[in-house]
């Protein structure tokens, strides 16, 4: 056997990444922060350091996502761990002069807690991070994703070395089974079991495939992992390949993720250069190479069989299972499909052991969960929490509660294939089985909070519209059934629904669930069913009273000016696009309901809250 290639990183990299006294500034260059000019922030900081003769003493480092994207661009000054939000290039001189040189944090750029109005200095002290446990995202915001040396300094590729040189494929699979890592793409199927099936199939070649299609609206968990820590995914894939006996693989990545694709390609090239990909990896005799495939831009291409069809250049449509991919997948050969996060956990599990992994989270759902928290909460962003945390803790402690002092109404998990939970279910623990038991699902990690101003009928309609647009059209229950459901929901939001429509929704939902070919059609009725279950009164209000309790459905509301509150300031009239408002200066104004387009502009501009929305009309 040839001498194993050294995995010892350059001493500078080790020092930069692991020395607590190292002076450096992290500048987030994930998609969120880059789109608000973090690249320019980085350049400005470098320039400022040069001006102060500090370019050799302080490192400015591009990092992956911190998750708190709504406050971006994010910049953290080390070793103090001072967390700056909404940093602009022109703030660079203050940060360098006041903080780096003067040792005083720039108060104006610190995060102010909206509830207590207190300025928070260190990033782990921000409420958003308080209950988080960053394992998968551990390297995000810390290492430079384009520098393999940084990954190596964080023990990167040590798991691969151990697997290839010390363990048999069976031992790896046993360890993975014992860790009970459940697939993070939504289904929660134990990864180790899947690998075992693929290993058992006697046919070559075999493939490892990473599902990085991430099509849920608003989700960006996988993107952040790929952008911030691409090597962890690659290392996980090589380990999986060795375990199942594959020597090649694909990373199927959404084409809408250009930065993730670029970082992946850089990482693959670096790994190849170090002999971590290609032939005779680390002198073990094991060969494996991976390539990036860009997605075809359809939600259904995240479904594993459609994904493989797409890799083969076919139309992205699912095919029926069995045979499962582990038996006959891409090009008819055994293939192991896992989500980005499932692969990214793998090196951590193989390095630290199954017991370590099982010590996090719950017994049946060990590990952490990564969510994209969005909607009407104070703090939105990407979060990583231990399984078993309650939905309430996520919304209230991490998200800071519902925004603008509004009342909470529902939280949707699992995106368009998931379900919603009302207030009384907020103490449900977040894990695969508990969420499923109450009609929501873990999904791949979207979490949308809706407040009292959300119309739940419209909420359900929105997801059904998404499905109608994204159904691949292969099977009639989904292709036609989803449209029939949407037509009913449309009718109800327009005040033309009947009570029979509710039964019809149930009947169509059942037909889709039972008859559809793939998970898309089978799960698509879930959001509607969960709204019907928890918010049937809203449906009935739309149907019987022709009223939208949340005052959102345009066909069911009317705008009215309260005479006692109207000061006759004329602002509403000037802003109304349809000239529906009349009234003299200092006289009471009136809206003509026939001309009113119900755009809501008057209510928005009235400083005296004199415009009232009435439903029913």
């Amino acid at each position, binding site marked *: 056997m040839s001498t194993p290639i050294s995995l010892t990183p350059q001493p500078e990299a080790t020092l930069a990444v692991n020395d607590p006294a190292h002076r450096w500034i992290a500048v987030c260059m994930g998609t969120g922060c880059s789109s608000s000019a973090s690249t320019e922030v980085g350049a400005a900081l470098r320039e400022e350091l040069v001006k102060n003769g500090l370019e050799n003493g302080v490192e400015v480092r591009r990092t992956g996502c911190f998750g708190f994207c709504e406050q971006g661009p994010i910049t953290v000054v080390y070793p103090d761990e001072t967390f700056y939000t909404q940093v602009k290039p022109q703030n660079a001189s203050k940060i360098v002069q006041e903080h780096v040189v003067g040792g005083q944090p720039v108060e104006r750029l610190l995060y102010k807690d909206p509830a207590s109005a207190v300025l928070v200095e260190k990033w782990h002290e921000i409420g958003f991070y308080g209950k988080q446990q960053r394992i998968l995202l551990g390297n995000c915001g810390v290492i430079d994703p384009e520098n393999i040396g940084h990954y190596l300094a964080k023990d990167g590729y040590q798991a691969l070395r151990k697997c290839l040189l010390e363990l048999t494929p069976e031992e790896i699979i046993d360890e993975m089974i014992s860790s009970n890592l459940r697939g993070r793409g939504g289904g929660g199927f134990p990864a180790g079991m899947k690998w075992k099936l693929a290993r058992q199939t006697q046919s070559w070649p075999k493939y490892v495939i990473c599902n990085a299609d991430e099509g849920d609206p608003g989700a960006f968990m996988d993107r952040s992992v790929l952008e911030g820590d691409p090597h962890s995914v690659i290392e996980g894939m090589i380990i999986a390949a060795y375990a199942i006996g594959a020597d090649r693989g694909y990373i199927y990545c959404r084409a809408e993720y250009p930065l993730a694709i670029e970082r992946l390609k850089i990482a693959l090239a670096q790994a190849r250069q170090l002999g971590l990909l290609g032939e005779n990896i680390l002198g073990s005799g094991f060969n494996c190479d991976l390539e990036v495939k860009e997605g075809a831009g*359809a939600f*259904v291409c995240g479904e594993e069989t459609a994904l493989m069809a797409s890799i083969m250049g076919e*139309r992205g449509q699912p*095919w*029926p299972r*069995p*045979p499962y991919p582990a038996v006959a997948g891409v090009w008819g050969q055994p293939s192991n499909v896992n989500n980005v996060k499932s692969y990214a956990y793998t090196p951590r599990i193989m390095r630290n052991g199954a017991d370590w992994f099982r010590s996090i989270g719950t017994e049946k759902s060990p590990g952490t969960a990564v969510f994209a928290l969005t909607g009407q909460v104070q703090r939105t962003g990407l979060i990583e929490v231990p399984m078993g945390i309650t939905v309430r803790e996520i919304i209230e402690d991490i998200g800071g509660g519902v925004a603008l002092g509004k009342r909470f109404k529902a939280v949707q998990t699992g995106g368009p294939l998931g379900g919603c939970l009302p207030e009384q279910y907020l103490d449900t623990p977040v894990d695969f089985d508990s969420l499923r038991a109450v009609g929501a699902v873990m999904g791949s990690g979207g979490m949308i909070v809706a407040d009292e101003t959300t119309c739940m009928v419209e909420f359900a309609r929105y997801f059904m519209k998404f499905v*109608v*647009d*994204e*159904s*691949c*059209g*292969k*099977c*009639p*229950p989904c*292709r*036609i*059934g*989803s*449209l*029939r459901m949407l*037509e009913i929901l449309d009718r109800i939001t327009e005040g033309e629904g009947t009570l029979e429509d509710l039964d019809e929704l149930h009947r169509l939902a059942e*037909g889709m669930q*039972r*008859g*559809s*070919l793939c998970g898309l059609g*089978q799960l698509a009725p879930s959001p509607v069913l969960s709204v019907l279950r928890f918010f049937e009164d809203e449906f009935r209000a739309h149907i019987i009273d022709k009223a939208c309790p949340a005052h959102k459905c345009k066909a069911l509301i009317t705008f009215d000016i309260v005479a006692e509150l109207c000061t006759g300031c004329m602002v509403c009239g000037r802003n109304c696009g349809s000239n529906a408002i009349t009234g003299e200066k200092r006289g009471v104004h009136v809206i003509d309901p026939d001309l009113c387009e119900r755009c809501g502009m008057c209510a928005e501009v009235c400083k005296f809250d004199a415009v009232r929305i009435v439903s029913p009309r």
Partner: protein
Amino acid sequence: MPVSLTINNRSCSAPDGATILDAARLAGIEIPTLCHHPDLSNVGACRMCVVSVQGARALQTACTTPVRDGMVVDTMSADAVATRKFVLEMLLTDHPNDCMGCEVAGDCELQDLVYDHGVQWPEHSGQRHDWPIDPDPNPFIFIDRNKCILCSRCIRACGEIQNRDVWSFAQRGFATKLVAGADEMLLDARCESCGQCVAYCPVGALTDKMSRGKGRTTQVETVRTTCSYCGVGCNFDLNIRGGQIVRVTSAQDAPVNGMALCVKGRYGYDYVHNPERLTRPLVRAKWLTGVEEKVNSNQWTVISQAEKRTATHRSTNGASATALITDNRSLITDDTFIQTDWDTALDVVAGKFAAEKMAHGGDAFAVLASAKCTNEENFLFAKLTRQLLSTNSIDHCARL
């Protein structure tokens, strides 16, 4: 090794690698299908063949699920039957209510299944497709996308049997549309008009253009025949109504070709009823004796060149076949064609062959045989050429 399983409480066995559908059919148990066709790959799209399998999380499609030893299948479970009805109902909500006027009524898999399952016509106010009917100018294939159930049988037939890959689906969801090439006209999309797609379409979405309105399958008599165009010897059924061929349908049990035919076999039958078709031999008057007498006794007929030209002109305008024939004896010249009988014509040919051979020997001949002949006929041709005409100069039109 055969696999044993239980279907509807009956023990059955099926070869390894068989699907539940194969096993059921072997056991004489019927499972409804739409997108499945035994000649084509299985895609599991239509969901008609769903069955309950003990231990499975959800219904399985019989056409795609391989059998396992000990498998317990119920093809008529309440869930399976309800799902089939739901699928049919959904398909009908996007189908024109046109069985009355439809070309394939009585020969439509959808119509039969709707009947078998007692599904009512679903009235609704929602969206239904309204594609233009017969938008493609090709002469053979009539397209009505409103009737298409997106089963993809045409796509697979064209790709897997004809290897032309003309058809595919564009768009997705409810907007999914069957398109030729990049949504072009068939003849611009590599179509060679073989009509395989029409033959495999289970509904009235693709039909034979020339046959429309001329007779449904229930109204015609069929005659199995062998194609006269080439030596392959494809079999098919002539569909006859009122003594006229109105359509050609291919048949799965045709020994040589199964369902496959080429454009000539499937659509090239119009010559049969063409007024210009030669049914008896024509010989120039100068090679014959006793022309006057035979014509006068109506055994032979005179075909004048001038008349023939105008008759051709007229017959393309719908004039009758008899217009070809004239009894204007004054027009007979040496070169006038006389419609004779086969014996006379063959005697003339044989006599001339013999005379040429006497005068110049076998090298005076060269023979070109035809691809329309069978192997046996071509063998006889070779014999005739080499043994009677005494030359080896024989070739075949298919040698390009």
